[in-house]
């Protein structure tokens, strides 16, 4: 009896990991989405909070691509998102200048900050066109690459009158929230942990199109 239960569990685990998991939308097959948006709608934000200060930053200069098979996102999702470190803004010009200096992110030496998807660890369908995907990927900042887990919510919208008003083609909405530790990326500063938190919350909200 026990061996039967084990076999069933094994088969179930195999099915969950191997059976394609993806969107139930009109589109079929492999799709490539460009995440570059010249209107400035795509964005990545960061938030730091300490007892002494709170810093919010934002950039809208995001570029990248996501590739996947609509019906099998779990086994086919690949992609990379990047942004110019120079483009980060905090609402105070002097602080923006400081942020890009060698004592912080050193934008001249490390002009790009990026995230590259390595594998999908978990996938959950919230709606026919909406998935939450747990991915692990390489986050590159300040010349250091670290593998971090990120939970991403992906929404697929087939081309319609509503989507055409925004962009031509099918649209893909991607939102993600995760944290990084600055000291692990060799960002060492006297005021780290005092006025600027070592743990930075990062938010990503981007829209991509497959007609570019």
């Amino acid at each position, binding site marked *: 009896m026990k061996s039967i239960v084990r076999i069933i569990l094994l088969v179930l685990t195999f099915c969950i990991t191997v059976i394609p998991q993806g969107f139930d939308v009109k589109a079929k097959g492999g799709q490539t989405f460009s995440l570059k948006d010249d209107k400035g709608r795509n964005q990545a934000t960061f938030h730091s909070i300490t007892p002494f*200060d709170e810093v919010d930053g*934002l950039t809208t200069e995001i570029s990248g691509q996501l590739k996947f098979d609509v019906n099998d996102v779990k086994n086919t999702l690949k992609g990379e998102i990047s942004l110019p470190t120079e483009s980060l803004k905090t609402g105070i010009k002097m602080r923006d200048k400081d942020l890009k200096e060698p004592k912080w992110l050193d934008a001249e030496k490390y002009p790009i900050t990026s995230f590259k998807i390595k594998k999908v660890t978990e996938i959950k369908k919230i709606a026919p066109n909406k998935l939450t995907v747990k991915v692990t990927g390489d986050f590159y900042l300040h010349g250091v690459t670290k593998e971090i887990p990120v939970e991403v919510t992906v*929404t697929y919208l087939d081309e319609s009158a509503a989507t055409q008003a925004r962009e031509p083609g099918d649209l893909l*909405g991607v939102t993600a929230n995760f944290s990084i530790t600055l000291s692990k990326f060799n960002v060492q500063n006297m005021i780290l942990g005092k*006025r600027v938190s070592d743990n930075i919350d990062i938010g990503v909200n981007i829209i991509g199109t497959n007609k570019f």
Partner: protein
Amino acid sequence: MCARSSGFFVNWFLIIYIIGKLNLLLKHMNKKQKITFAIALIIIVVAFIIWIINGSYIFTQTQILIEKKDLLFGTTYKEWQNKFIWGLDLTIIVSIVSILSSLILFLIFRDKRKTQNEINS
């Protein structure tokens, strides 16, 4: 605990000492100097009240992030909006300018008779 209580007493001692000194200073001021002192004090207090009301930020900001709703995807995104937020840096600058100008006015409004008496003696 001991260090905390000693710090507490030192703070209170300082406050009482400053109040005592101010009281002594007020007694020796003429009317114009008292008005100058009152105006400087009001400016500093108002600057700090504005700073607290604006959210007690360390740095003065000219832009803030506001949340907007994306109706197509049902998500929220952020946008910069021009807004002036009074920070501690500006509060300190206003306070220092206020103190310096009141000190200059203090010297200008000095009791001249006393100076003449000092010369005569």
